[in-house]
Each structure stands twice: as structure tokens, then as C-alpha cells.
């Protein structure tokens, strides 16, 4: 693993809720262009770590660097602007808006995001809006949502909502995409195509960090793998090493009744 110039660098990231430490001094490097896998038993602190990286629950301590620039302590919209886009484990669509508009919400610095430009430069706003729509249609196609793109997002199924989460972050062309359990609730056929999609994006250079419980998915596409248990990082390395590591087995077996 290249130690120099990682895409994402975590150092001692800690998040407490009251007296409970949900993320406890997590530090690792994720190389550029990698698909990192973040696994661990339920309640290990994976989603909380994502929330801390994305600025949703700012870490109590520790540093986070994205492409060399510090992003810890930034608000979520600033983190996004810096190039980190994330999906939610429990999808958060804009239910009263169509799938197309849910996707178009992510525009690359559209002039029309500033209200006065809609009055002073309506032509430019329209041109950009058409281009954005064309891009959104492509991404929606890529995510297999074309049939429902005119429907209100609130009417989608659980699996479709997962795909919509993916579509929205794909619109951003971010430096890194954080996916929180993209395969959960998605049927096996779709899951296979989802894996293909992630691979295809990765082949174009897209860096990922993925939380996933489905071990087939993790083992087939993720390298390196990071294992968390009780807030701590207990393993990092390749898939084969994770299987052999006693602490990892312990964490998972300890999880069983």
C-alpha cells in the first residue's frame, strides 16, 4: 500500500456521545484509486465514522485529510465541496421531488444556484440546466432508474432508494465516494450490477470507501479492508489477511448470541 500521497488520511479520529466512545482513535490511509472496505459488527462505529468524516457529527479529536487538505471541522456542505460525497445507510431522498430532480440537485456549481442569476442570466441558467439534465439522465440510466425517473422519490422501493443515493453522489464527480451499505436491501441481480457499476467507476479512477456487511461483495471488490469493532480499528490489510486475523474472527464471533 502506498504510504505517500493517499486520497484519504485519518489520524486519531474520535467521536464520543456522552460517555460512550463510538469512534475511538481511528487512523488509516486510503490510497488514490482504491476501493476501501470498512467492515465490522453492528454498532462498531462505521456509520459514525462516515458521519464524522462528512462533517455531520464533527469529530471530538483527530485529523482528516482529503487529497492533502484538512477537512475535519468543516460543515457538511464544505466537506462536499472539498470532494467527499457520501450516501446514507438509511436513504434520505427528497420524497416530494421526482427521481430526476433528486438527481439534478447535485449540479456542478450551476449559476442558477445563486438566486439573482435566474433573473439576470436566464439563458445561461437554462443552458446549464439542460446540460445537467442530460447528465442526470445518464447517471439515472447507469443506476437502472430510468423507468421511475418521473416518479416522486417517496414512492420508490428500498432497493431503488439505495440506487438513488448512489445516483446522487455520482452526479458530483467527487474525489472520494463513501457508500454506507450500498447492497443492503438490493436484490441479488441488482447487487451484481451494482458491483459492476462500482468497478466500472473505479476503472475510471474513482476512489471509494464502502461499508458493507455482504462479505461476497467486500471480498470481491475491496482492497484494502479496514475492520472496526467497538469503535476501534482492529485490522487493516487485504482480504485474505482479514480472514486469518484472530481479532477479526473474535469480533464477529463475539457478535453471535
Amino acid at each position, binding site marked *: 500500500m502506498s504510504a505517500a500521497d493517499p486520497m484519504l488520511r485519518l489520524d486519531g479520529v474520535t467521536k464520543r456521545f456522552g460517555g460512550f466512545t463510538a469512534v475511538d482513535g481511528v487512523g488509516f490511509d486510503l490510497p488514490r484509486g482504491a476501493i476501501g472496505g470498512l467492515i465490522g459488527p453492528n454498532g462498531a462505529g462505521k456509520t459514525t465514522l462516515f458521519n464524522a468524516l462528512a462533517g455531520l457529527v464533527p469529530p471530538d479529536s483527530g485529523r482528516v485529510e482529503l487529497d492533502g487538505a484538512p477537512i475535519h471541522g468543516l460543515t457538511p456542505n464544505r466537506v*462536499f465541496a472539498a470532494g467527499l460525497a457520501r450516501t446514507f445507510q438509511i436513504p434520505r431522498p427528497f420524497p416530494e421531488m421526482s427521481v*430526476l430532480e433528486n438527481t439534478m440537485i447535485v449540479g456542478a456549481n450551476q449559476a*442558477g444556484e445563486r438566486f439573482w442569476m435566474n433573473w439576470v442570466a436566464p439563458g445561461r441558467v437554462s443552458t446549464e440546466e439542460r446540460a445537467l439534465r442530460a447528465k442526470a439522465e445518464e447517471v439515472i440510466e447507469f443506476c437502472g432508474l430510468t423507468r421511475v425517473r418521473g416518479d416522486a422519490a417517496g414512492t420508490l422501493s428500498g432497493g431503488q432508494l439505495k440506487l438513488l443515493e448512489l445516483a446522487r453522489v455520482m452526479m458530483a464527480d467527487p474525489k472520494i465516494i463513501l457508500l454506507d451499505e450500498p447492497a443492503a436491501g438490493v436484490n441479488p441481480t441488482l447487487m451484481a450490477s451494482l458491483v459492476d457499476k462500482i468497478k466500472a467507476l473505479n476503472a475510471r479512477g474513482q476512489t471509494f470507501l464502502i461499508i458493507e456487511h455482504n462479505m461476497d461483495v467486500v471480498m470481491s471488490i475491496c482492497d484494502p479492508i479496514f475492520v472496526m469493532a467497538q469503535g476501534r480499528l482492529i485490522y487493516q490489510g487485504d482480504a485474505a489477511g482479514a480472514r486469518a486475523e484472530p481479532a477479526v474472527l473474535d469480533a464477529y464471533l463475539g457478535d453471535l448470541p
Partner: protein
Amino acid sequence: MIGVLSYLIFFLILALTLGVAVLGLNLQWGFTGLFNAGVAGFLAVGGYAMAMLTGPSRAAVFGGFELPFVVGLLGAMIASGLAAIVIGLLTIRLRHEYLAVATFGIAVTIQLVCVNWEPVTGGTLGLIGIPNPTKAMVEGSLAQNAIYLAIVLIVTAIAYTGLQRLVQGPWGRTLKAIREDETAAASLGKNPVRIRLEAFVLGCMLMGLSGALYVGFIGYVSPFDFLPIVTFQIWTMLIVGGSANNRGALLGALIVWGVWTMSGFFIARVVPPEWQAQSGAIQAVLIGLILVIVLLFRPRGLIGEEIHVSRHARSAPADARPEAP
């Protein structure tokens, strides 16, 4: 016949004037989910700004700059916009019910200031003699009112068109996204605080414009024109017409103002004299009744929200859909 016509013109002037404020509230509540319970306060700021800028100069009262009508309208928007920036910066992080309580309190405060700050507002007497620009143009109140209606129609059309431009573009889409899920919107790069403040200020500017049109028409301003009942009326107009739909906002203004004035008319005729003092309360109860009926049977209003925001996202999606079985 002339009587009906002149009454209709009078009715439309007031209904559309209030409609401008309903458009402002629609931007705040309908599109952004900001609960502004202090609409009357922003109408007051606009109305008093109009009176000060265009009214006759008087020794006892500050203001009376005798500026043109249009300057009065613009000044009213600027004044209410500035008030909204200050109030918005103080309260915009207060969400939902907190914002409602805060804005309600602010509106009451503004009204009390109008009552008590005599050197500027003229106190309980208000400010009189605000020139209606149509008086200098033609003779006869029918023609004057017809011209004023034309002015109000033009202002309403500009406000409506300008708002449609906004809410059907990227900015409007962001408003809705923030309304529906602020956390998700922020995670997708939107700055909820900035966008909410912008919507709040623009909406309040329309309320100020509405207040100015009102004062310019009736020719005086009184603190008792901006009691909380006005906020209630404007809210009812929005809910009845259809939140998050600008056509609905205007339709609601026409319908609710119609019910309000007609009920006033009938109360004056049928209610015994000793009850006349309560006529305002009877009207308010009627409006409340309409509100409840709409909320029960048509919770999204007469014309509700459309799921497509962008002009450029509307037409096509249907064509790709297979026919429902």
C-alpha cells in the same frame, strides 16, 4: 352596474395586494418550510416606509420626503428586506416552532413600536395624506381605482414571474431539498443557512411591497392595520390556495379575501346592530372554518405542489414510462 364594477375593482386591488404578501409567504413556507408567524410585521415595515418616503412633510413627524410612488415601493422592499436580514440572522437557526414563536413576537413588537414611536410613526393616529399617484392622473374615483388596479396587476405579474423563474430553477430546487431533508441537502453541498436566509429575506421583501401597495392605495397608515389577524388571513390564503404553488397562492388570496369581504357585507345587513361590534370576530371564525375544511378535505390546498421543479425536467419523464397496467 357601475356600483358593482367599482366594488369589483376595489376588491381586486386589495385581494391582489394581499396576494403579493401570500406569494412572499409561499416562498418562505411553501418552498422552504420557514414558519413565519410575523407576516403582519413585515407588511407594517413596508407600509410605514411607504408613508415616510412618499408622504407630505410635517413638522411633528420625521419623514415625509414626498418622493415618487415607485421610490416608495422600492424603499418599502429595501426596508423590509433589511429588517428581514437582521431578524433572519438572529432567528434563522431557530427552526420550526422556534422560528414561529420568534417571528410572532417580532411582529407584535413592530406593531407596538408603530403605536408608540410617535415622532416617526405618528403613534396611534398613524400617518395620513399619503398621495395616491392615480389622483394626479385622472378625475373620478372609478378611473383612479382602475389605474391603481392596473398598477397592482403589473406589480403582481412581475412578482409572480420573478418567483416562477426562481422556483423553477436550481435555486428553487435547492429550497425544496432543504425543506424536505436539510441534512441530505447539506451532505450534497447545499448551504442550508444561506439559502434559508435568502428565501426569508426575499419573502419578507414581498410582504413589505404588499404593505406599501396597501398604504399607497388607502392613503394613510395606521398601526391597527397590522394586527396578528392579518398574519392569520395571509396564512389561510396560502393554505387554501395551495402551498408551494404560486398560482395557488394568488387563487387563495382571491378566494379568502372574497369570503372575508362578502361575509362582512352580509354581517352588516343581517346581524342585529347590537352584535355588529363582533362582526370582525364572526369573520375571523368563518375564515378559520374555511381553513379547517380545506385542511380536512384538501390538505394540499386547491392547487397543490407539483413534483417537478425545473422547467427542464418537466415534460419528458412521462414519455419513458410504460402505460400502467
